[in-house]
């Protein structure tokens, strides 16, 4: 087990050189049975295992990952953290996640590079100003922070935006100062190390190929490393949820889509926080290495390819040029794609069932990273107590049957529009 990190320890390790480097968690071999098996070694699965051990004293847990931890969406997102949602079912959950982010590094004893550099959503019309004022009020009611900036306020923060000649002039913005970014890989590693220190087995290169059943009940999983029995099987495999659900003959309110992200060559510090364009889908921040990290829409058609197409690349870059023409000669360094669970109302699922012994964490659309701490915290509560916490009471699977959906954009059951 790795030692607790401290300043003195880091100095001592630096003097000892590379021989001081130790694995941050054990590469465990699977045992025949566990209390809980969490399928999916991304941020959500590892956070779930961590909070199961920490908050509920359930440490006889395995996290199964088909490749290595953090190699799916946890390593492919654009690292933004924020709690600027509108609807009652969403905003308290995301604000709880923001509060967990604020204490995460002390809790995990791990530098996750949480940087509250601000998230600024621009508006370009009176109607958009009204919508953002309403959203800001909803955020404040849920205990989050929000400020409505006028044009001069935006100009003071981001003078490089196109204020003078834009087709859609910038009228102001909604700013959440507590929002920002975190280092996505470090979040995964921190949760993996924290879970491991509490006794959780992290089993990599272990793909789930089937489920053990006793009647309706799910009693374990078949894997590429043999069968593993469990009292409770928890799925946290957003992007591939339907592939596992198919093994259980379940159909879910989810389509898999591809979301691309991009990073430019490195620049000196330029963009102070996260900026989103209000008249197209484009958002940008700057990494600590200096590259601009940006993205936009999903591809719009079902995909398991982890690879996008050129029309979205062009659309995202057009959005960037419309917002800040100064990036016109910037070179793009890399582009990549990840698979996202697009749900029928654009909101996630954290619930018991739908079969006995099964627990579901899915449907994160393109907003899963910011939710990582609260998703794990709520999923652990749901698994341990067999009932959702008040924070995820709106994220139940049966809301699609009852009609109590949480549709932030109000576009209906059309996943590619959320």
């Amino acid at each position, binding site marked *: 087990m790795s030692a607790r990190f401290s300043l003195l320890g880091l100095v001592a390790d630096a003097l000892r050189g590379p021989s001081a480097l130790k694995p941050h968690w054990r590469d465990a071999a699977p045992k025949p049975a566990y209390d809980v098996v969490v399928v999916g070694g991304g941020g959500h699965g590892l956070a779930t295992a961590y909070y199961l051990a920490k908050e509920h004293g359930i440490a006889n847990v395995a996290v199964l990952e088909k490749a290595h931890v953090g190699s799916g969406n946890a390593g492919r997102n654009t690292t933004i953290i924020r709690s600027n949602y509108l609807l009652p079912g969403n905003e308290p959950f995301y604000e709880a996640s923001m509060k967990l982010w604020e204490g995460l590094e002390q809790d995990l004893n791990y530098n996750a590079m949480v940087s509250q550099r601000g998230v600024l959503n621009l508006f370009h019309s009176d109607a958009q100003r009204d919508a953002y004022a309403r959203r800001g009020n909803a955020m404040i009611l849920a205990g989050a922070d929000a400020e409505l900036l006028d044009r001069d306020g935006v100009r003071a923060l981001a003078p490089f935006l196109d204020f003078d000649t834009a087709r859609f002039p910038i009228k102001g913005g909604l700013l959440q100062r507590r929002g920002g970014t975190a280092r996505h890989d470090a979040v995964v590693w921190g949760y993996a190390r924290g879970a491991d220190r509490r006794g959780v087995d992290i089993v990599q290169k272990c793909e789930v190929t089937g489920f053990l059943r006793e009647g309706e009940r799910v009693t374990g999983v078949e894997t590429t490393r043999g069968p593993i029995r469990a009292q409770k099987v928890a799925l946290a495999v957003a992007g591939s949820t339907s592939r596992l659900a198919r093994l259980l003959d379940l159909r879910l309110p989810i389509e898999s889509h591809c979301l691309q992200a991009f990073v430019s060559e490195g620049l000196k510090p330029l963009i102070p926080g996260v900026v989103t364009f209000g008249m197209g889908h484009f958002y940008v921040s700057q990494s600590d290495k200096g590259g601009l990290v940006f993205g936009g829409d999903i591809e719009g058609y*079902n995909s*398991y*390819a982890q690879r996008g197409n050129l029309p979205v690349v062009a659309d995202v870059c057009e959005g960037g040029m419309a917002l800040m023409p100064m990036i016109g000669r910037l070179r793009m360094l890399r582009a990549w794609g990840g698979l996202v669970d697009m749900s029928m109302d654009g909101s996630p699922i954290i619930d018991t069932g739908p079969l006995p012994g099964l627990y579901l964490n899915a449907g994160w659309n393109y907003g899963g990273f910011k939710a990582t701490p609260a998703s794990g915290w709520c999923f652990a509560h749901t698994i341990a107590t067999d009932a959702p916490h008040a924070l995820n009471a709106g994220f139940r699977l049966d809301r699609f049957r009852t009609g109590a959906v949480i549709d932030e954009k109000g576009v209906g059951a059309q996943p590619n529009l959320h």
Partner: protein
Amino acid sequence: MLIPCPYCGVRDAREFTYLGDATVRRPDPAAPDAAEAFHAYVNLRDNPAGPHSEHWYHGAGCRRWLVVTRDTRTHAVLGAAFAGEAGA
């Protein structure tokens, strides 16, 4: 991505608009299990990793609805037919 429209020939996917799964069927609203059947029709999808039958609308071409079969793992288009004639 190129889609072979039966009327217009092979055209860029940007000319088309995607709707989704072409295998779901609007249920009979008078059936006794209509509520459950409509829940499945509106919300539940197979979402396969592999060949997927899906509706695309050729808005910048012949303005007909197509049923396109496409592999979701590779984006390879395996075929396309007019929606009515494909029986969908």
